[in-house]
């Protein structure tokens, strides 16, 4: 106890503390970690759209209003972003679940999983949207 106190009383040596985020070169694994949190955050508020859609479906007027929004360019943009966030977060979530089993922590595995997360989410989002726009005749 006395030993600890005297140590605390001494002026601390000037040594670097924990590393600061700014001194890191941005790495893909790091960006994907942040992206998981940002997409989770966005999906959280996006559930308002899900609730709106379900309640709108109850009446023709309500549904017309929802369809007007969904068809507008801003609506399309939000829905496109939401699709990507959902797919990205789902793939990122699967990555987290793989880690939870103790696997996938090797340096090359981490890089591979991060790249697969990003490329996979973009590819699946584009495929879904192209499929939908083609089958709906661009309406």
């Amino acid at each position: 106890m006395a030993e600890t106190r005297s140590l605390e009383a001494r002026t601390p040596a000037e040594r670097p503390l924990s590393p600061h985020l700014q001194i890191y070169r941005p790495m893909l694994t790091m960006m994907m970690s942040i992206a998981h949190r940002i997409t989770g955050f966005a999906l959280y508020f996006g559930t308002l759209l899900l609730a709106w859609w379900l309640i709108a479906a109850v009446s023709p007027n309500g549904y017309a209003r929802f369809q007007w929004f969904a068809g507008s360019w801003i609506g399309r943009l939000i829905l496109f972003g939401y699709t990507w966030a959902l797919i990205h977060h789902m793939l990122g979530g699967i990555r987290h679940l793989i880690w939870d089993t103790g696997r996938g922590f090797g340096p090359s595995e981490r890089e591979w999983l991060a790249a697969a997360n990003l490329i996979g989410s973009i590819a699946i989002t584009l495929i879904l949207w192209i499929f939908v726009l083609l089958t709906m005749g661009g309406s």
Partner: protein
Amino acid sequence: MSAPKHIRTPLARVLGRGAARSGTEHFWHQRLTAVANIPLTIAAVIILITLLGRNQAAVAQILGSPAVTIIMLLFIFSITIHMRIGMAVIIEDYVHDESSKLTLLMANTFFTFAVGLAAVYGILKLSFGL
């Protein structure tokens, strides 16, 4: 101030159960709902795609059918629990002032219950009519 801290046994301190006072329950439920979210999200996206471009009557009928209603209810329950825990983690990570933290954690619970129940109301109304 420091006295009660010292009478606490290591077990009691462990039972203080962390910043959200819920021990490992949040961690576990986050994983449980994450696993459930995977098939439920895929199902919900497929349902959504099949409904695109249909008129309200058709959408209401399909969404209100038993199988689709049950899948959507499961989806809503799972994501609501999941996103409430997820947002709580974000709040605990960035908000360190005790009263702001409690306020935001409360707001998080209110928001998730409100949006979750609104979605449940919509789907049940479609399913049961009225």
